[in-house]
């Protein structure tokens, strides 16, 4: 399925940018208004999750356990046991690292209806450094059974994934970007777990991306087009379960695959794609991501440094066409 950008004309690079946390809080308040089961659970992260208005509107339904991530995820599992639908909102680095065993045992293995929302993931905290970067979250959670992993690329996809998660029983992890991104999707966008979206068609080479890097991948495709290279850009919001069919088709129909994500090069979307093609249709793959503890710099600077500027992604794709 192809969904085009809501605004026509001009480069994706020039579109207005949005902080996905705003879509997150608006959607959470909206869901809470119509479903009394929805609650927020935070580790003191009211401000960093932009939940002040939610707290004002639903004072009893924002459970702040203090700076205590293990307790936060356990409490969420207990709230789900009591019939609530907790949206745990915490910096992704602390949520996924500090509470990994609670995520595994209390949420995934116990099959509790908990929505884990990793705020400001990837390298969003930029200059605060690798302690606050969350490039490993996807690799960690991909190894856990019974966990759906969603990495939305824009505000519309963030809201759509949340609405789907609220309406669907079971554990889900949603990454909520802090770094501003342009809108990719129109208001009619429907999130379907495990479904990739071809956001730009092409049959020379494929770029598979999600999150904050998807618009950069589209910009890369624009550059490649000026060289006469038709790049297919596949948006892969659900890292798990992966849309195997879309990956295999791209492997079969184009000269190679570039994956690009704001996450570690080991075990993330790139790993998932590589695992798939190596078993179903071996082809050339370039995995772009973050291979190390990043040096000081803003998220945008660091993405560029690791080859995920539009130019960098285009260069990787061009290589595969040779």
């Amino acid at each position, binding site marked *: 399925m192809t969904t085009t950008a809501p605004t026509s004309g001009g480069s994706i690079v020039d579109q207005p940018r949005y902080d996905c946390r705003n879509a997150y809080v608006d959607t959470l308040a909206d869901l809470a208004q119509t479903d009394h089961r929805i609650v927020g659970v935070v580790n003191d992260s009211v401000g960093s999750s932009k939940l002040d208005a939610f707290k004002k509107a639903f004072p009893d339904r924002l459970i702040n356990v203090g700076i205590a991530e293990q*307790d936060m995820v356990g409490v969420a*599992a207990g709230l789900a046991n009591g019939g609530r639908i907790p949206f745990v909102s915490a910096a992704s680095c602390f949520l996924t690292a500090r509470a990994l065993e609670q995520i595994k045992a209390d949420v995934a293995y116990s099959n509790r209806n908990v929505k884990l929302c990793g705020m400001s993931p990837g390298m969003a905290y930029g200059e605060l450094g690798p302690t606050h970067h969350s490039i490993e979250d996807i690799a960690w959670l991909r190894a856990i059974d019974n966990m759906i992993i969603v990495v939305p690329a824009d505000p519309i996809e963030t809201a759509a994934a949340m609405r789907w998660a609220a309406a669907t029983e079971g554990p889900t992890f949603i990454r909520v970007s802090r770094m501003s991104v342009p809108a990719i999707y129109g208001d009619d966008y429907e999130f379907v777990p495990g479904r990739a979206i071809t956001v730009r068609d092409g049959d020379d080479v494929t770029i598979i991306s999600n999150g904050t890097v998807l618009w950069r991948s589209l910009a890369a495709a624009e550059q490649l087009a000026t060289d006469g290279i038709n790049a297919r850009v596949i948006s892969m919001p659900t890292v798990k379960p992966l849309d195997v069919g879309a990956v295999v088709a791209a492997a079969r129909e184009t000269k190679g695959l570039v994956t690009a994500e704001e996450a570690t090069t080991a075990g993330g979307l790139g790993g998932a794609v590589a695992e798939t093609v190596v078993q179903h249709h071996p082809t050339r793959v370039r995995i772009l991501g973050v291979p190390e503890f990043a040096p000081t710099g803003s998220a945008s600077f660091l993405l560029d440094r690791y080859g995920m500027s539009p130019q960098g992604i285009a260069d990787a794709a061009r290589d595969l066409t040779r």
Partner: protein
Amino acid sequence: MTALAPEHATMPVLGRLSPHASRAEQIAHIAEAARQIRIQDLKLVHYAGAGHVGGDFSAIDILATLYGAVLNVTPDTADDPDRDRFILSKGHIAGALYTTLAAFGFLPVEELATFLKPLSRLNGHPNRSKVPGVEANTGPLGHGLPIAVGHAISAKLDVSRRRTYVLTGDGELQEGSNWEAMMAASQYELDRLTVIVDRNRLQQGATTRETNDLDPLDQKAAAFGFAVVEVNGHDHGELLDVLSAVPFRPGKPTFVIAHTHKGHPISYMSNNVAWHHKVPSEAQLQQAIEELDRARRQPAADEVSKADPAFSTEGE
């Protein structure tokens, strides 16, 4: 050794007494349930060749009291949103939990014969998706208390009278997650939450004092905002009275320090660290059953020492 087979899973299903039964009748019912659960559990561990019998036996009186006379949950209401919740944080005593659940009709007694067998739903740690009556998939320590706090918050949001009980080991309190949860329990004034500590003073290979001392546990719990009460964890009357008295103190969660002995009341096992996960021989199994039968005929008050058990590796 004979493998665990259906003829080894024959305990009676005891069910619940009428709520109008007298306290004495309730206590006698709990005592008989605890005795039957111990015999059945010992057979499971003996014939399966694995289990955590020491910790099972320190907690069985607590489990029998909860399921026999306290918890507002029966096999018919195991999915009722307003049921009381019991969360077993020390998930390694799954054998004791399964046996207790079978004694009160949550799962078929004959199924106990599958304990730890390939593809059995009766795993070494409980799985709520597979075993009726289980509320959380515990095993890694320090997980039950946060889950219980979350459930107690949900009950408060629902303005429900349902209660939340969680049983933790004492060594388990070395996990920091418990103390995070205790702070939240106090902050949220969860007075329908009861934490029961199986205070047998032994962890895997040594006393808690030798390892990472918990004392003064009562003062620590009180400082974290709990109403603290100490009971003999093998005295069914004391357990019944305290666990039924929720909220113990309005506005405060309750912290019950249940003084117990690992392996209680079997002479060769009681208070002996070697029995954390030792398997009884055929002769030891028969001796234990005889001791439990004798205790029924000549009931005596079970004394529980609060002194540290002597370290013993006898029989290792």
